[in-house]
């Protein structure tokens, strides 16, 4: 969309401009099951605007080569664009320096990098790692692997029936053995926004470093690493209008510097002999091999796009969608919302009495509606609510209230079918 005027006026998203925003996303014009696509699986992966698609095409047709290698025109151009994307991300999350931005394949790899580079070096036998019951498997399994390897112990922050972490219990978990806190900023299964700034400050008061899994937060709210003060922050490109295969690990420079490399290879070295290798400085130390150059540049373009819309506009509009959908769902008999935290992103996990979520998903698909069904890679959350799976509608700034109406209408018809 043309947003030169919008940018300056910081225009809110509403009925008057939502069609123009939707027109930026070619895939939203798709027909599925011969019906207009209603894409409500944004927490799994968001869609890509034309500006990002164009950036990919431009890069591949006019700029591509390997980076940090040769002296020729294309290599220098690709390197410049790749590093410019790093700076865009630095500014987007308000990191102090661009060398605190490590490109990874995604949130999962970012967390694994910290587990290997920090955890294996600084967490040992009997040490304790605190996680929350809300975590995605990507922020559980790496720490479990580390705990098994080192003889460390995982401690889990519980939650209440609304899906909010119990802060008193969280604080009570800390002791002299606590060495790390790994916490989701926003729950992918429930949408809960955790009070991560307060929790980070508490961990720091015990000298404990903090990693935040920001996969579900980065696309939906403005981020400020100086304000959050976390030590590590991980997120993925494909959940914020960028491509798959690219993610980010932010880390405070002094921690990244004392960490071991995650992978060995080209680009992460200063010199190599068979006797000794001298590692490169950060961020290169953590970026062995040829990175996903195109994807990094495209993520930069996605950040430009989101920034032009304005993260606060996005958050406000998505909150409106959430309130609207929550109101509609609450009014339906036989439908239970799972996750009713007072502070949420636009994620609605739900259960229809007597209907398995997978049947809901299949039948909605027949109406062109894409939702996620299953355990959302968060089995401990499912166990906590005593359900095998949920259906989840997750909204983005390009969704509309009309789409929510369609969802609600189809859920009513599913109920009739199964009654």
């Amino acid at each position, binding site marked *: 969309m043309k947003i030169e005027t919008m940018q300056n006026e910081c225009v809110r998203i509403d009925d008057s401009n939502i069609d123009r925003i939707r027109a930026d996303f070619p895939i939203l014009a798709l027909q599925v*099951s011969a019906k207009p696509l209603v894409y409500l699986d944004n927490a799994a992966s968001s869609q890509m605007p034309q500006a990002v698609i164009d950036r990919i095409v431009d890069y591949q047709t006019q700029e591509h080569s390997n980076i940090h290698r040769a002296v020729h025109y294309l290599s220098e151009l690709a390197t410049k664009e790749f590093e410019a994307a790093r700076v865009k991300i630095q500014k987007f999350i308000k990191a102090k320096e661009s060398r605190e931005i490590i490109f990874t394949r995604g949130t999962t790899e970012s967390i694994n990098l910290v587990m290997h580079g920090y955890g294996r070096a600084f967490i040992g036998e009997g040490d304790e790692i605190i996680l929350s019951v809300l975590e995605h498997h990507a922020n559980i399994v790496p720490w479990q692997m580390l705990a098994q390897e080192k003889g460390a112990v995982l401690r889990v922050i519980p939650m209440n029936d609304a899906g909010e972490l119990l802060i008193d219990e969280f604080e009570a978990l800390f002791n002299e053995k606590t060495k790390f806190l790994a916490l989701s900023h926003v729950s992918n299964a429930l949408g809960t926004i955790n009070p991560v700034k307060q929790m980070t400050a508490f961990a720091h008061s015990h000298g404990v470093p903090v990693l935040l899994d920001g996969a579900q937060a980065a696309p939906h709210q403005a981020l400020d690493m100086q304000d959050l003060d976390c030590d590590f922050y991980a997120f993925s490109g494909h959940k914020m209008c960028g491509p798959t295969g690219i993610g980010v690990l932010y880390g405070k420079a002094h921690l990244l510097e004392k960490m071991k490399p995650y992978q060995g290879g080209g680009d992460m070295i200063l010199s190599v002999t068979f006797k000794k290798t001298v590692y490169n400085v950060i961020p290169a130390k953590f970026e062995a091999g040829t990175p996903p150059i195109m994807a990094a540049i495209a993520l930069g373009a996605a950040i430009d796009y989101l920034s032009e819309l304005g993260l606060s506009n996005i958050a406000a509009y998505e909150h409106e969608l959430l309130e609207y959908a929550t109101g509609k769902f609450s009014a339906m008999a036989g439908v239970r919302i799972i996750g009713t935290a007072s502070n949420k992103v636009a994620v609605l996990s739900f259960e229809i009495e007597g209907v*398995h979520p*997978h*049947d809901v998903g*299949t039948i909605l698909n*027949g109406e062109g509606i894409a939702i996620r*069904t*299953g355990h959302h890679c968060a089995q401990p959350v499912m166990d906590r609510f005593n359900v*095998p799976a949920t259906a989840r509608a997750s909204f983005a700034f390009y969704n509309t209230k009309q789409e929510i109406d369609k969802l609600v209408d189809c859920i009513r018809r599913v109920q009739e079918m*199964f009654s």
Partner: protein
Amino acid sequence: MTDMRQLYQEVILDHNRKPRNYGAIPDANRHADGHNPLCGDHIKMSMNVLDDKIADIAFEGHGCAICKASASMMTGAVKGKSVQDAETMVEEFRGMATGTLDPENADHHLGKLKIFAGVKDLPSRVKCAILPWHTLHAALNAEASISTEGEADPVSDHA
């Protein structure tokens, strides 16, 4: 909803609401557990095989309508059948659900079970329909538990 009605026919919805042969046989001589990690479907099957015949069979557990209806109709279809005949039906059902057996144009013994032919167009749901049959096969072959994520699954994991 018209297209989905092809699969979610009244017969399937009825078996989902009121599954037949539901429960556990206390003195069963064959058991197996079937698990579909994608959906969380979980089927426990128990049966008595006497003189090479399935004398009695029951299932319990939780799952989606496709899985439950498939289990319910399967138990009705194989009760009283020989082990060999039941195994033939396992193969035929698997073929139908994965699209290698066209129930309209090939010989088979599936009878009313051909109502499940539509799952072949829903790759993520094929495993739901097949799970009870895998579990039956496991019980007949004295395998205590199977998972549709295991090697025994002919269908891609990434559905």
